[in-house]
């Protein structure tokens, strides 16, 4: 699959950097909790 196709599919889910960072923080906090 090309990057062009991935970017096209991702356009339907476009979000903000803040949302990305919040999701990553949450995910890493869960990982830390599991460790």
């Amino acid at each position: 699959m090309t990057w062009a196709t991935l970017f096209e599919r991702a356009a339907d889910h476009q979000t903000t950097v803040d949302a990305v960072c919040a999701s990553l923080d949450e995910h890493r906090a869960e990982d830390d909790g599991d460790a």
Partner: protein
Amino acid sequence: MRDPSPARVVADADVLAADLLCGPDSDARAAIDHIRRHSWVTLVASDHLLADATAVIADLADDALAADWRARVEADCEVVDHPAGDHPALASAYRGGAQQLLSYDTELRSARTSASLNRHMALSIRPPDAFARLFDPESLYPVVEDGEYPGPDRDPRA
């Protein structure tokens, strides 16, 4: 462990996910496009780091897009190993000889973190907008390859 090189770059999971999800005008897209355009610039990542980005994409988009993204990015990057408890971006840079790390994490980019890290490794940690603005392939090319910079040699959308 690889020899350090300024042409080896780690993008933290927030930057990788933002490249995909924050649109064509995002800083992350501009930064990662510099890497995609040049075959002699290596994106370095661990399984842990890719798993983090995949989880973010699955959370904010869907599982199918996350799985397809991971399959595509793995073909583009050099995957390195590190212990599970290490910070995925820092450990990827350390193990993979990357001298550049892109992250939105202000704590990671703090003066205290930099001072502590630079006792062990020469690592420049920047937000993607700074990397996108300051990346200078004409200056970097002769440092890591022979001859003059030939221009971009890859299609960043392939």
